[in-house]
């Protein structure tokens, strides 16, 4: 059995040497900073921290991209000229313990999301303070932490889903559309209130406070965070099982 620390190091090296990782990272940092700036500029918010939190949902786009490419890269075919072949063959011969492999990928994805979130919120706070001037609201640091957790859960769900699809296209389209353009979960919630237990809605109050949320009856931050965490853990567990049993 390969040592988990080697597997994590290999997966980190892999993800950091992919151009799409830089794109995802930039999206996680620049997206929220830009939206914070616009929200502050349009005086939609008076409190800088609130302006930053209002920009947190856009960061899920980069988180989704990161989670997806961490897995979809394995299944991308090389060009025919160089003999085709997919990276998953190299990955699984080097690291045959597939559950550890998925754990390592999850650790690396969470690590990168955490670093991106730290950069994003720091820059966005500086930006909002610059536009709006001072002002400090209680409980904001906790909710910024909550926003980072929401991104991390989202990235991990994207990772797990991509294990099932073995291609990045479908998860990218569905998850990004659901996270930014039209929330299917939210539409469903309008019809069936139980939809608030769906992963993206369950965790929404990790960063959004009740006054700034269009959704009534959202789960409280702790319950919601636990529900979203349970979805994430469950999906990863099923993904590990699928990966373990499936022919590469």
């Amino acid at each position, binding site marked *: *059995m*390969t*040592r988990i620390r*080697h*597997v994590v*190091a*290999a*997966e980190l*090296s*892999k993800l950091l*040497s*992919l*151009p*799409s990782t830089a794109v995802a990272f930039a999206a996680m940092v620049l997206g929220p900073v830009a939206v914070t700036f616009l929200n502050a500029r349009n005086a939609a918010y008076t409190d800088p921290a609130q302006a930053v939190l209002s920009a947190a949902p856009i960061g899920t786009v980069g988180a989704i991209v990161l989670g997806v490419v961490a897995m979809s*890269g394995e299944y*991308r075919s*090389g*060009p025919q*000229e*160089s*003999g*085709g*072949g*997919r*990276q*998953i*063959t*190299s990955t*699984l*011969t*080097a*690291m*045959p*313990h597939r559950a550890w492999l998925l754990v390592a990928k999850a650790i690396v994805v969470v690590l990168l999301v955490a670093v991106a979130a730290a950069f994003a919120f720091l820059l966005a706070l500086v930006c909002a303070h610059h536009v709006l001037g001072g002002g400090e609201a209680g409980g904001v640091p906790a909710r910024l932490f909550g926003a980072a957790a929401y991104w991390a859960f989202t990235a991990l769900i994207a990772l797990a889903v991509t294990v099932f699809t073995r291609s990045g296209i479908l998860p990218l389209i569905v998850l990004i559309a659901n996270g930014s353009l039209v929330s299917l979960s939210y539409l469903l919630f309008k019809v069936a209130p139980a939809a608030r237990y769906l992963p993206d809605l369950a965790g929404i109050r990790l960063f959004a406070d009740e006054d700034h949320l269009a959704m009534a009856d959202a789960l409280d931050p702790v319950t919601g965070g636990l529900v979203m965490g349970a979805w994430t853990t469950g999906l990863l567990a099923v993904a590990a099982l699928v990966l373990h*049993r499936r*022919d*590469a």
Partner: protein
Amino acid sequence: MLSIEKLGKRRGSRVILADVDLRAEPGKVTAFLGPNGAGKSSTLRILLGLDRPTSGTALVHGRAYRSLRDPLRTVGSMLDGPGAHPSRTARAHLAWIARSNGIPRRRVAEVLEQVGLAAHGRGRVGGFSLGMGRRLGLAAALLGEPEALVLDEPVNGLDAEGVRRLRGLVRAHAADGGTVLLSSHLMGEVAAVADDVVVISGGRVVAAGPLSDVTRGHASLEDAYFALTGYERAEGA
């Protein structure tokens, strides 16, 4: 020592492999021959823990590949293509593989040199030719200084210099006491390097043994191969 016993594989109702037996011993080059689609790659993929057999066992030094600790230090392998992400450089590809098995970083430059790819270490895999892709795959196989080499169609796409280099490397590996198992559908290339031969056709082993035994009674390995696989009629040769 690589030992495969009574290996069977089905996909749905289709039989891919039936009762495949194969041994590759240290100090020898074992050639695994058969037409395309005969089951060579399927056998090697099971040996390397990529696919699961329906029945039988495939062991490396008596252990399942998936249970090996740092497997690349025991078995180096190359399957179809380089198995690298097209946007990564050759060096970055080998670097993560080295990390995954605790292989010293200096090996990356060493194997690039060894396969004749030193000048292309910073080139992206997506821009590689077929021959360069094969060389990169071979470099990855050699990275962990493994006792056994498992190479699927290693000659494919190599130029004359590459074939010569590969032959030398494979012979040297066996001469040092290592185990080499290589598959091919090209007889001429194999006759020049193999000690033992296993011929597979339609998912079944049709002949196995030392090269001289398998070719006895035939003009060449090629004739023996066509006679054994019944391929000459299909080819019209």
